Every structure is written in C-alpha cells, then in structure tokens.
C-alpha cells in the first residue's frame, strides 16, 4: 500500500520518517478558498494533507470517506461553508447529517472515528484553516498509520472504538 511513498523517498535520496497521508474534501466556495487564504497569508501547516476540490460538501458521499480509509488514507478531513452560509443554500446541511451518521458507523467496520473529522471554514478564515489542519495532522500522527481493515483486533480494542467522542 505504501510502495509509492517509499519509492519517492528513495528517489529524493534521504531517509526520513514515513509521512502520514490525509485526504481533505473541501468545498470550492468556502474551505478551498480558506485554504487559499491561509496560503496567501503564509500560515505554516504540516504537509500531510492532500486536498480534493468538490463543488459543495453536499456532493460528499459518505462512501468517499470509507473508501479513502479502506484504500489506505490515514485520515480524512471534510470541510465546507458554515451552516446557513452554503453557496448552494442547503448542501452543507445535508452533509452535516450524513457526516454525523458516518461518524457513528465507522466503528462498526473497525475504523477509529478519530481518523475522520468534518469542520466548517469560510473563505476568509485562513487562520482557522491553519489551526484545523495542524490539529488534525497532530491527531493522525498520534494515531499512527492506518492499518486498514486487515488489522486483527482484540475485543477490547474493538469495543474501545465505540467509546471515543
């Protein structure tokens, strides 16, 4: 799963700690703009995040999150416009319900809910974006690489997945 990553590291020629890979699904109008604002303001962030631009968080099929985590992403971040401020009026309200439900579902397939987070960042909130990325990256580093669905889990660990907030 991490072949490409290792290969790249050897190409650049140095030994370094394996990078964690986080996939970000950002709505085009608010959070993608917020990430741009953070860039324009040179707000330093960890490099683990890979952003996929979607028109609206309403476009988010919860399956994208599940598939990302199964394919081997170590964390998934979904971010959109603040509720009531959606460019398409209501998309983020649908997203909020779907993401909230997804959070409850993840433990059933043995995935730590902490690997998934959704948040609201507007196009002017570059600083907030920096904070969100930094905190979430730290959290995923703390959890370590995602073993995917193949990990054999003892009953205690499996149960603990349901106790996270």
């Amino acid at each position, binding site marked *: *799963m991490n*072949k490409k*990553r290792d290969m*790249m*590291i050897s*190409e*650049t020629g*140095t030994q*370094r700690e394996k*990078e964690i*890979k986080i*996939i970000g699904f950002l709505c085009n*109008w*608010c959070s*993608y*703009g917020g*990430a*741009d604002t*953070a*860039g*324009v303001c*040179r*707000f*330093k*962030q*960890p*490099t683990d*995040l*890979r*952003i*996929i*631009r*979607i*028109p*609206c968080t*309403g*476009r*988010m*099929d919860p399956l*994208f999150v599940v*598939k*990302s985590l199964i*394919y*081997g*992403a170590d964390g998934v971040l979904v971010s959109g416009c603040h509720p*009531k*401020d*959606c*460019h*398409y*009026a*209501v*998309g983020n309200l*649908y997203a909020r319900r*779907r993401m909230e439900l997804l959070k409850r579902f993840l433990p059933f397939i043995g995935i730590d809910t902490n690997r998934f987070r959704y948040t609201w960042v*507007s*196009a*002017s*909130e570059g600083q907030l974006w*920096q904070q969100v990325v930094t905190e979430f990256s730290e959290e995923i580093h703390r959890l370590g690489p995602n073993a995917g669905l193949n990990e054999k889990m003892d009953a205690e660990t499996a149960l603990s997945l349901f106790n996270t907030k």
Partner: protein
Amino acid sequence: MRIGVFICKCGTNIANTVDTEAVARKALEYPDVVYATDYMYTCSEPGQEEIREAIIKNRLQGVVVAACTPHMHEPTFRRAVEKAGLNRYMFEQANIREHVSWVNKDRESNTIKAMDLVHMAVEKLRLNQPLFSSKVPINKRVLVIGGGIAGIQAAMDCSDGGLDVVMVERETTIGGKMAKLDKTFPTIDCSSCILGPKMVDISQKENISLHAYSEIESVSGYIGNFEVKIRKKATYVDWNACTGCGECTQKCPSKKTYDKFNEGLGSTTAINIPFPQAIPKRARINAESCLYLTKGKCKKCEKVCPADAIRFDMEDEIITEDVGAIVVATGYDMFDYSVYGEYGGGRYPDVITSLQYERILSASGPYGGHIVRPSDGKEPRNIVFLSCVGSRDASVGRPYCSGVCCMYIAKQAIITRDHLPDCNCYVSYMDIRSPGKNYDEFIRRAQEEYGINYIRGRVGKIYPKDDRLIVQGVDTLMGVQMDIEADLVVLATGLEASEGARELAEKLRISYDQYGWYMESHPKLRPVETNTAGVYLAGVCQGPKDIPASVAQGSAAAAKVQILFSRDTIETDPQVALVNERVCISCGKCIEVCPFGAIQWKTLRDGSQKAEVLPTVCQGCGLCNATCPPKAVQLQHCTDDQILAEVNAVCE
C-alpha cells in the same frame, strides 16, 4: 489519452520550496502522460504559448498545469488549451502554490506533496469528457440594495446606461449616512448640497423603481435570472396618496418618539418624515409609539390629513422582482459607544458620538446648526475629540482601522472653530491616518491655520465635575498626564458592519469576514465582485472607506453590471449533473433534494418516468449525485469515479 503536464515555478514562489524539475520528471511515470516540463511563469504569454505548442507538437488530448490556485488562473489556462483546439474542460489544475509551497518550507515534503497533487490531477483528467456550454437569456434589470451614496451612484450609472433599476432601501428615505452629515472632508462641501440633487434624480428617473422602507425577504435564481422577494414594511400611510405636506407631523400628540435620523438627539413625533429633503418625502407612523396603534385612541393624523392617506390597517406586503444582477450597498453602522464604560457614553449627556455631533452641526439638525451641549443648551468653550473609539482595539473585537475618523475629526474641529472662534478644540489621537488626495494637507490646516490642539495619547477616563467633564489621559509626546475640563466630548466611533449584514449575506449566498464585512472575489483584482456570479459590492459593506471611494466603487459595480448586460445571453457552466436513464430507478430523491428545482420527471416512450436535469437551471452542486441510491445522476467533471480516482492516486 495523451496528457501533457506543466509545472509552474511561479518565479521563486513555487521553485524555492518545491523541486519542480523532479515533479516534472516524476509526472512522466504517471499513466497516459507523454509530455512533462517545468516553466518559469506558465501563466505568462510565452508560458501559454508553450502549452499551445506542446499540445500541437505532442498531439496532447488533455493538459495538467500545476501552479497557483485554480481560483486564480483556471480560466486563463482553459482559454490557452482551447486556443490549441482542445475542449476547455480537458484541463485540470493542481494547486502547488497556496496549498504547498506557501504553507511549508520543507522542500522534500513539499516536493512529494506536489507529486501527489499532480498525480491526482492526472488521474482525474483521464476520466474527463469534453463539455459544451449552453446559452440562457439575461434579464437586463438590476437590483440595488441600499440607498446610500454608493447605492445611489450605482443606480444612477446603471440608469444612465439605459438599464431598469430596482432600488431597495431599509429606511423611509434614501441618502444613507451621508444625508446625516453636515459637511464633507477635505473640501468642506455641504453634504446635503451635493447629495440632494442625486437623491432627487433617483426619484425622477423613469427607469428606477424605488422601494423605500423595504427589505430583502429572499433571493433565488442565479446570474442573469434572479428572483427577489421584497418585504414592503407597513408604513400605515398610503404613499400613493401622501404628498409629504407634513400636516400630520404638526398635530401628532405622541412627541416622545426616538429620533433615528438625528441619532437620538431630541425626539420626534410618531408620524414622521425624517428630514425636509427626504426622498421619497412620505410620512410613516412608528407603530411602537403611535397612540392609536398602541392604545386604540387618537387618530389625529387621520383627521388632519388633507389627502386621506392614513391607513391604520396596513400590513407588510411581499412583492417579487425579477432581475439579472444585484448590487449590494448596505453600508455600515456606528460602533456602540457604551462599550467603553470609562468614557461614559450613554451615561453623560455631553459625551456624544461623532455622528450625533454631525447632526448638531447640521442646519437641519435638532439645534438648527447652533453648536450647543445636549444637556443644557449652552455653547461649549472646550471640546475634546477622542479618536479610535472602536477602531484599532482588539480588546473590543475591532482591530481594524475605520479609515475615516482622523479626517472627520479634523473636519468637525475646523467647522467648530468656524462657528465658535473662541471654542478650544482638543484632539486626543493614537496616530493620524490621512492617506488620500489633499488629506494630509487638510490635517495640517486644522493644526496650523485653525489652531486645533492635537495631543498624542490615550484617554483613560472621563468623569463629571460640576457641570463639566474632566477628560483624563496621557500625553505621550510630552510624557505628562493630561487633564482637560471639557464642556463637550465627541467620541470618534468607528465603523462596523450594518445590522443584519450577515443575514442578508446568507440570503445572497455571499461570504463575509469575522466582522461582517462582505468578501470581495479578490482583494486586489476583483474588488467589487463576489464569489456569487452576478452579485456585486459597493461602498462600506465591503469594508471601511470614505465617500470618494464609495462613489468610485458604486460606479465600478455599475460598470460590471453593464459589462454583464452588454450581451443578450450568458454561457452556462456545463459542469452540471446528468442522469443515466438506464440506471435511474425513478425514486425521485434527486428531485426532492435539488435546491434549485433543476430536476424534473421525464416520460419515456414506454411510459416509464425517469429523472431529467435541466442543464441551464442546474448549478452543479452535486447534491443529487450524493443522494442518488444507484448513482444514476452523476455530476459531470466531478463524477464518483473521478473523485475515487483522486483518492486512489493518494493511497496507491
């Protein structure tokens, strides 16, 4: 597919922290990539030329550019690939500047991240299909929200250009804050003399319909075709009959009504016309203080009205206007001076706001233009002006400079010295900010010609002593404590976002910042556009600015509307949803969720019903795509397969 990849160095912006050459080399390993290179400035004319040449020479069918954010140059590059004969949607942009090189300095990590982003773009591009726009007609009417100077300017410029204009104003009269001012800096022009004729023009233009005392209820639709619902609030006076004679205001017995136009100095009657030059000059009954509407007895105004215009049973009315573009010019409110408890604003009658002082100076104000104290009507001998009350102070949540206070303090002090040559004026300031044509000269005149005392420092406390006020603070240039016995203290209150600005932004689907100022599309290059196509900004609603800048922005917004309306049709974005009829199970969920009503039933020849997307109505949000159980609806250019291809590229 034959794909070409172009990595932009953006001078040193990207190249400093990303090894663009390595990224280009790596790109050649990705599937279908037959050409990859890096270039100094890909967006430049020679850079675009290189893309065009490479497309032709290598028979490319799709292009990836890794550069800045697509919000910046996606249209540029789409045009470039189109010029070389490709469909403009056979292009993807990877953002390796705002999201990579500018947010971390680790060259190695950045390079790996840039490679990943390029890989994702390539995988997405492999599934792109050529798309073609369709055309919809534009409704060439414009809505202007707000009748202050910025809105008036925008409305006049649109009207002069032959457009139909709908103007909505929250108060009973247009004119906004400028109508309350006595004079304007730096020329000491009489404010109502330069604004008045423009207000009259608005009322007399045949192609401007003015809805005063009205607010925006809801906005639907999109650029070229908005549908706006407007709430015409009940005035209890039939404005078609009312002549504005003012007979009713003479006879109204409820004389203790808050005088909003005069900023609460003095009081007014329940039925009221705000000021003599009001446009439209029509009376309104304040339902909260009207004796008949609160206690059921009086009806004096009805008896004296010669036009029989009083309607006590009037209710709010909702009307609908169809427009093609919207100019937002909703202005600002003044900072609440009571937040600074140590200044005593609201507790001491002789501590007033700058806008209240403006009303005192005005000949149409409560004291007829005589400078007197609100408490006892005496002429002041010492006046202290305090700058930055609610500006440049993070502790009250207003870290920004309001931009106009330094100038209006100088103006008010100069007028004061003109009216009362024996009155001493003191200005307590943090810094003097006077960038602008003839602005600094104006401040110098205030100091040198008019002998106004400028004291650098901060006032800590204001307290009453006998019938005067002691202003206590520090003079930081002299390094001494400052105690001034003042008769009147004017707080230069800062500007803040207009009440209800956030709610209006949500209706218009435009962004605002943490203070409620509306966000422009680009801080430098698109200062009057918003991120919602067809909605433009003018005046202080976008951020603090003075009258010349507001007028300039009003004209700029009008110019943008004229540009939009110079065509008869608008090209729609073809990145819309599409139904695969063979997969559709006719559940109707997409029809239910679509916020725009863009999906409808279609009857096939065999009588079965399937969902159908109206491409000109669809806005491309993809909500239907995420909702569709069998995934029959796919958002073109952002299909499930494409998103998962990007996911795969990261995880591979």
